[in-house]
């Protein structure tokens, strides 16, 4: 096995050449596929003159960070950016609070009505936001929750709590029973064993849940736009049209706006790739 690995990197061997060719092909596919993201970034570093120029250029001939500064120097933009973080954070808190204990209960206990509970979470995961939007708006209106930071995360977590349950349940299931029992023999209560033994044992899954639920809040458009009636409470996603009418056809500024919205996603990907990838597979198909 070790020998095989070595052979991969020796280009004069058959395995080495295969590895090199496949890797080059993969780079080509990756570059083509991700080209739109490069396109957005390169426009965001162009000057106004080049943006309005007649010729379409594939990289900024006069590199400038002005479009980024136009956004980052705008009080309204920074406000929206802060709101995006608040929305992501509150969604994450609700998901952790309600999702992780439920996943633990579903994964570790033999429950009567287990199938019914599972069905509730699976169905909830499939539901379109459009279905909840109008009734929730009317309910939140009555409860005076519209225009608060809490309204959108409560609705978004309706999707990410079931995601957490479905994704984490197999993680909890796979923790050896011996570990749990040892803790109980040592005099741990169920609650103590949950926090001190089980949670650390499924750390990987929990990082997945934290990351993806934050992104669910960060990415949301429909709920924030509807429930946060005041523009100064809206996150970046919900204020896109507002900024677009401000920038007009200044695509360099618009693309910088988009790039800043994507940046946290890219950063999370670079550091937490394996957690996100694993979680997406587990949460979407049966394990």
């Amino acid at each position: 096995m070790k020998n095989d690995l070595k052979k991969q990197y020796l280009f004069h061997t058959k395995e080495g050449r295969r590895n090199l060719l496949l890797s080059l092909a993969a780079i080509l596919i990756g570059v083509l596929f991700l080209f739109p993201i490069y396109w957005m970034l390169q426009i965001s570093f162009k000057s106004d003159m080049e943006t309005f120029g007649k010729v379409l250029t594939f990289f900024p001939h006069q590199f400038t960070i002005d479009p980024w500064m136009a956004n980052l120097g705008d009080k309204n933009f920074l406000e929206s950016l802060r709101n995006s973080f608040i929305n992501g954070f509150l969604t994450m808190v609700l998901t952790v609070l309600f999702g992780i204990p439920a996943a633990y209960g579903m994964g570790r206990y033999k429950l009567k009505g287990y199938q019914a509970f599972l069905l509730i979470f699976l169905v909830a995961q499939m539901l379109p936001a459009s279905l909840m939007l109008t009734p929730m708006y009317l309910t939140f209106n009555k409860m005076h929750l519209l225009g608060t930071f809490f309204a959108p995360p409560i609705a978004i977590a309706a999707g990410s709590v079931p995601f957490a349950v479905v994704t984490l349940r197999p993680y909890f299931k796979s923790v050896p029973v011996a570990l749990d029992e040892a803790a109980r023999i040592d005099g741990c209560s169920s609650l103590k064993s949950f926090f001190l033994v089980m949670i650390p044992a499924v750390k990987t899954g929990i990082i997945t849940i934290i990351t993806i639920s934050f992104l669910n809040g960060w990415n949301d458009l429909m709920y924030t736009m509807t429930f946060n009636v005041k523009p100064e409470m809206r996150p970046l996603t919900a204020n896109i049209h507002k900024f677009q009418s401000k920038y007009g056809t200044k695509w360099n500024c618009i693309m910088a706006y988009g790039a800043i919205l994507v940046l946290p996603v890219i950063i999370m990907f670079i550091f937490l790739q394996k957690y996100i990838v694993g979680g997406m597979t587990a949460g979407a198909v049966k394990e």
Partner: protein
Amino acid sequence: MAAIAKQKTRGKKNRRENEGYAFILPGIIYMILVVGYPIVYNFILSFKDTNVQNLAKGTSVFIGLQNYKELFSNPTFLLILKNTFIFTFGSLVFQFTIGYLLALFFYKRFTLAGPIRGLMLIPYMMPMAVTGLLGQNLFLQDGLINEILSWFGVGALPWLTSTATAMVAVVIMNCWVGIPFNMLLLISGLSNVPDDVYEASAIDGASKIQQFFRITFPLMKDAILAVLMLGFIYTFRAFDLMFIMTAGGPLNSTDVLGTYSYMLSFTQYQFSKGSAVAIVLFLCLMVIGILYLILIVKGEKDE
């Protein structure tokens, strides 16, 4: 003696079961309040005539199936229903085919397979609203897509400003998001096909193509079904992409049930009409959703 011991374990078992309920209860209550209640409320709303005027006064009344009758005799709604299916099936065909081909490629073992496959998920994880914004730019009259077409001698297309091409542009952007999702799930489907089946068939003299159609494809049947059904569920409820990229236009040509329901409820403030459209969306989804649940439950039992 034995009976006492048995009783003791039963007591312990009951206690353990109760603990289990204590852990899932908050989650279940949350689901009932934030999912169950709105669904019921939405059904009720769709049988009433609630709008912004009578909402404050509380004078809305039940009008039975009136909203639904009006919808199904409204040509705009029928167009939007058709759009939703065209958008969904158009996206499914291309994102599945391309996603499958990429899955077959990235399933091979080589140094960069993992990292590049991972990076390709960025379009799936980034805000759909930004995808819509990017789509607006790519499909400009003097944008990148027309530039590339001109290299092949194809004249500039009006894309987002023409009812004939706007839907194509939206489907392309949606496929860009759906392809990595399909690829990822299909790779995990491929990895469930055991290697020794291939080895055995290779000894029997099966060609690569025969292997694909006789072994890989049939053994992945459940994974493929799951991906297609999930794809349907995620695509049919689309909203963000059209809302930002085309706002449903031009002339409703990219309007789908999600955007139409929103427009009725929150631009025209006809809450009951918006609810009725959401119910139609929900019922279409549930047809596929139930099939998907049957598949999942079957998988659970097989375990």
